[in-house]
Structure formats: C-alpha cells, structure tokens
C-alpha cells in the first residue's frame, strides 16, 4: 500500500511525505528509525561483498595469533577457535562460535552476491525471495566485531606468560569487520527491496 508507512516498532501509521533533510526519518511516537538515507549504489554493495569474501578467506587461511612459549609454538586461524572447542567436547559451544564467526558472515556475503549480481543486470536470481529471507534471518548473527574484541582480551591474558605474535589473519579479521559493517549499512532491508523493485521489467 503506497503513501503510508507503519512503524515496525510501535505500529503507528505515518503518511509518506517528501523525505526530510538528510533522508532520515524517525517514528513520531516511539522514535524508532523508519527510513535511512538510501544513496548507495548496487556496485558499491557488490564491491564490498567481494572484498569481504576475500578477507574472510584470508582470515581462515592464515594464523590469527601465534603463541611462543618454552621453545614451542602454536597458532590458530579464525575457524581454529571453533575447532578448539569441538576438540574439547563442547560441540554446541563450537557450533555457536562457528556459526557467528564463519557461517553467518559467509552466508551474508554469498546471499547478497547471489541476489545483487543478477539485479545489477536487471534480472532476478531464481529463488530470490527465500534467499533474501535467509539473509534477514542470518544477519543479526554476524558477531565479527565482538569476536575481535574477544581476541583482544585473549591476547592481553596470554601476554602475561607467553610471547604473542599477531598473524596476518588478525589484520584481515579487523578489515573484514569494517567491511561487513559497511556492507550491512549500504544493504539495509529497505535499500535491498528498492533495488529489487527498481529492476522490475
């Protein structure tokens, strides 16, 4: 129904008038954000998604941190954190860490690429709507920035009794975190559906 938007947070109906300055609109009653400025291009979104995909692969291919103690050393990748928990018999905890640091970012990137690349050429990917619903479900479970802070805490604790060396993956994880948050902000739900509707033949 055009001309009216309903606040998803408090159900208040708003008449759609010309976009306010800056393109940002708040609900008049509960102050939840209703509309954000939408000025990203689909090319930016695809570029960020490809960049995030490369960074995610790097983060899993190279060590995150290496620890040297008493002449022996150990290192771990991003995926290694989940594997370490699995080895110790905490399968559900391992699954949670794997889901929030590997699966969710990967699914977010892949579903976006799957939908956006055909859209850019004015086509729709087969199964586009279910894929977009998967994206909406998976997006809140991407915890990359929390993982980075957790890694920092682990490094501080370890640095008391071992020599710690940051690996390539620590930097690629940090870049991945920035890249994913930029990607999320240019592909808001409203923006995605605007692209979809704009491509209607």
């Amino acid at each position, binding site marked *: 129904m055009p001309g009216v938007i309903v606040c998803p947070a408090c159900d208040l109906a708003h008449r759609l008038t010309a976009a306010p300055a800056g393109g940002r609109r708040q609900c008049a009653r509960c102050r939840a954000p209703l509309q954000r400025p939408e000025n990203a291009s689909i090319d930016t979104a695809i570029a960020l998604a490809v960049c995030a995909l490369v960074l995610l692969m790097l983060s899993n291919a190279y060590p995150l941190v290496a620890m040297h103690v008493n002449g022996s050393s150990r290192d771990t990748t991003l995926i290694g954190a989940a594997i370490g928990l699995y080895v110790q018999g905490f399968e559900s905890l391992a699954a949670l860490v794997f889901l929030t640091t590997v699966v969710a970012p990967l699914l977010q990137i892949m579903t976006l690429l799957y939908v956006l690349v055909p859209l850019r050429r004015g086509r729709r990917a087969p199964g586009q709507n279910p894929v977009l619903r998967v994206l*909406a479900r998976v997006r809140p479970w991407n915890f990359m920035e929390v993982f980075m802070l957790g890694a920092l805490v682990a490094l501080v604790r370890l640095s008391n009794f071992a020599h710690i060396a940051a690996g390539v993956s620590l930097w690629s994880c940090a870049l991945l975190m920035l890249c994913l948050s930029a990607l999320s902000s240019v592909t808001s739900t409203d923006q995605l*559906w605007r692209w979809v509707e704009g491509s209607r033949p």
Partner: protein
Amino acid sequence: MTQPATGRSLGLLVCLDCRATVRDVQAVHSRCPRCHARLHRRKPHSLVITTILVVCAAALYVPANVLPVMDTRTIFDDERDTIMSGVLVLLDSGSWPIALLVFIASIVVPLLKILALGVLLYTAWRRSPRRRLQRSRLFRMVEFIGRWSMLDIYAISLLATLVQVQSFANVIVGWGAWAFAAVVVLTLLAARTFDERLLWDTPPHE
C-alpha cells in the same frame, strides 16, 4: 484524546522481513505479497515464548557465574576461573581497561538484559500504558548491547585453542562457559521473539 492512527486501526500490516506495508486481509496463513514471508499482526505467542526464554536465561545465570568457565592447568598449579575471577586476573595483570570491558560485557550486560526483559514482559503482560517511550528505548538498548556479551566466549575459545602446550600449560573449557553462552543466546532469542508493538497496543490514560 483522539486515538492515533495505527496499522491496526487502519487495517495495515508491516512485513517484519522486508518492511513492506501490506493490507490486512485477515487470512489465516497470509503471506507478504512482496517477499512471501508469513505475515502476523503481532509476533505469534510473543509474550509466552519470551517469558520462557527469559526464565531459562535467569536460571542459567547462576551456574554461568558460579561454575568455572576455564581451567588452566600448568605444571605448578591448577587454576579454575569463573567469569568474575577472570576479571580479577585481568585487573591484577594491570590491564584495568580490559578488565572493566570484560566486567561490563560479561557480568553487567547479561544481568541488566535479564532484568530489563523482565520489566518489559511484566508491563506488557499487565498492558501498562505508562512510560511507553522509555520502555521502547529500553528494549532497543537491550537489542543493541546483547551481542557484546559473547566477548568472553570468544576469548575463552581462543585461549583454549592456543594454550595446549604439552605438559606445560593447558586450558580446558569449563561448563560455566556453556551455561554463560546459553544465557547470552537465550536473551538474544528473547529480544527477537518479543514484539515491541505490544508496549504500545494499550491506549494511554484510560
């Protein structure tokens, strides 16, 4: 005071998946015409499901703080850390900003989340018309800060993976970490199943 025009009063629904505004056709299994997600006027059984999740989270909050989350075995000693003693270890090692960060993320945030969700649920069950804007903001804060409690789980998983030096030092994950992760996940799910529109469904000043 005149009633404000709401989606409910105008017969409009908002699709929570794609945010499309849709005419309420009162069908049992209606789907969004744009993205084909199931449509509901309100999230189904929101209060019951959220209450169960919050009660479980509150129950698990006790073992999460009492049981050791991590067991550090070295040739000299065997040190069992709970979440709080982990914070104290960080404080002793002189990194108080990190200690404060972990204290807030792992102890303050989960407790505040459980309490805040409790208040929101209680007032939503009672259909309280008071302080709706503040409660709405409280809910948004709960949604925003919830994920940061996972911080300690990631730190523990990295420590347990890295510190496996044969017969010199080993870090073993404790069941406290499992309970703690369960508290975080249950409160995250509770924030997703809670329908904030329920806070606004009762008209003010009746």
